């Protein structure tokens, strides 16, 4: 009897979380794109322009690493760009989300994680209607293989896990340290420059390379490129590495958030 009751209340909690998530995500998207002409597709504009810019500057000199084809460089840069863009936008939005809703959290009982998670979820939606269809088309053209198409979602899931973990971590830290955004900008820049988005990994000196491999975004980008661009069947070990980083950061984020929760309520 008691067990059934528990199960019932857990089901209710999950349902409540889901409904909260839905309404907060719709609100985010509504506010962001109210009265905008391109709507959700604004989020594609940034990586497209950046890709164009990098191609114009580096394309010619790096093309030799991409089978002497500028087109390959463009595709590689674009896939890297959308991944990194997703990470940096969603985490920096998550960063301020808990503190911004501090007043509300002090009035109504809410699962605190809902705010950073809803920021990530809004970006997942954006990615799914913006960049993902492009990636799907690219995969089909390059590999003509349905397995690659399914595998395409795996690095994306790893990316979501990683971003959620980092988002939880920074949103909790921000409550203790209000100057965190400046530091985070720096951290994000280090991650950006150390992931081979617009340059080929081959130009990095051997001694420095191991450090770059510590960057959890690198395997995610590499795995996505391998699946979308190479045309070969998915490399499982790459996917595995991508997931490893994602899962580690996701658990770290969840654990720290729970540990700090009781403390940061005093400071909201």
């Amino acid at each position, binding site marked *: 009897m008691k067990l059934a009751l528990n199960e019932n209340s857990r089901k209710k909690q999950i349902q409540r979380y889901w409904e909260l998530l839905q309404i907060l995500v719709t609100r985010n998207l509504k506010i962001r794109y109210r009265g905008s002409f391109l709507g959700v597709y604004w989020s594609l504009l940034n990586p497209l322009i950046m890709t164009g810019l990098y191609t114009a500057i580096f394309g010619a000199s790096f093309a030799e690493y991409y089978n002497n084809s500028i087109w390959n460089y463009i595709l590689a840069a674009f896939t890297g760009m959308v991944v990194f863009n997703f990470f940096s936008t969603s985490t920096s939005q998550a960063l301020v989300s808990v503190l911004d809703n501090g007043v*509300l959290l002090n009035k*109504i009982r809410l699962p605190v994680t809902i705010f950073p998670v809803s920021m990530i979820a809004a970006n997942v939606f954006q990615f799914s209607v913006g960049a993902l269809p492009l990636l799907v088309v690219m995969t089909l053209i390059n590999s003509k293989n349905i397995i690659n198409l399914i595998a395409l979602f795996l690095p994306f899931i790893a990316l979501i896990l990683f971003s959620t973990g980092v988002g939880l971590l920074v949103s909790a830290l921000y409550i203790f340290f209000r100057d965190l955004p400046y530091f985070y900008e720096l951290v994000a820049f280090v991650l950006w420059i150390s992931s081979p988005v617009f340059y080929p990994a081959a130009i990095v000196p051997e001694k420095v390379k191991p450090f770059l491999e510590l960057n959890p975004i690198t395997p995610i980008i590499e795995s996505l490129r391998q699946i979308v661009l190479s045309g070969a069947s998915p490399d499982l070990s790459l996917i595995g590495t991508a997931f490893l980083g994602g899962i580690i950061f996701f658990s770290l984020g969840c654990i720290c958030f729970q540990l700090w929760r009781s403390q940061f309520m005093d400071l909201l």
Partner: protein
Amino acid sequence: MEVIRLDRVSLSRRTQEEFSYDLKKTALLFLQGKYRQPARNLVLNKIDLVIEKGEKIGIIGGNGAGKSTILKVISGILEPTSGKVRVQGNIAPLIELGAGFDGKISVTDNILLYGILLGFSRKEMKKRVKDILEFAELEDYALVPINGLSSGMVARLGFAIATDVQPDILILDEVLSVGDESFKKKCKRRIDNFWHRDTTILVVSHDLDFVRQSCERAIWLDKGKLRFASHANETVDYYLNSVN
């Protein structure tokens, strides 16, 4: 049947002023070995309280005595540092309305948002939208963003949503008076309705006459301690005698 039970509940909180919000400064202090744990204040001190279903309880006491804090502990917003809190039934808070609104989206969207934040399902809220608009007298504004409403209208909307629901336990932090005279009357009728029903009500108020008239029982909190708990009249008398 008891609905709320506090067993030796204590809560210590960090004082905000004590705290340096600076990562750079904290890191430097740490390196110099001058870092110390932030001080904590005991806001609630071993409170025992049992509330039966349907009781109307007034909470009185000076500023900073922990009145609002105890409500937050009961609603589950804050977890006690030690002791146990048990609550049966759903709680609706009615504290400073309008905190959950988003000025940029429409009134209807806000009703859904606020209702779901308060813990009601989307399906239920959709059904209630019409009633709520009607009570708040805002039918003509359903699709207007909240920013386009006057502050009185926003307060009316907040009240309408929070009281449209029928909670088992209602929490009032400083009884509200919103809107113009005619709306105030409507509010009063609604609150009276809660009073007559089987709802358990907790009120924090500085209005002692109000507590005498509308509550059965009252508790006096003093610097985080439960000083006195009895019939509303007795508690208020005791409180007045001790303070003067």
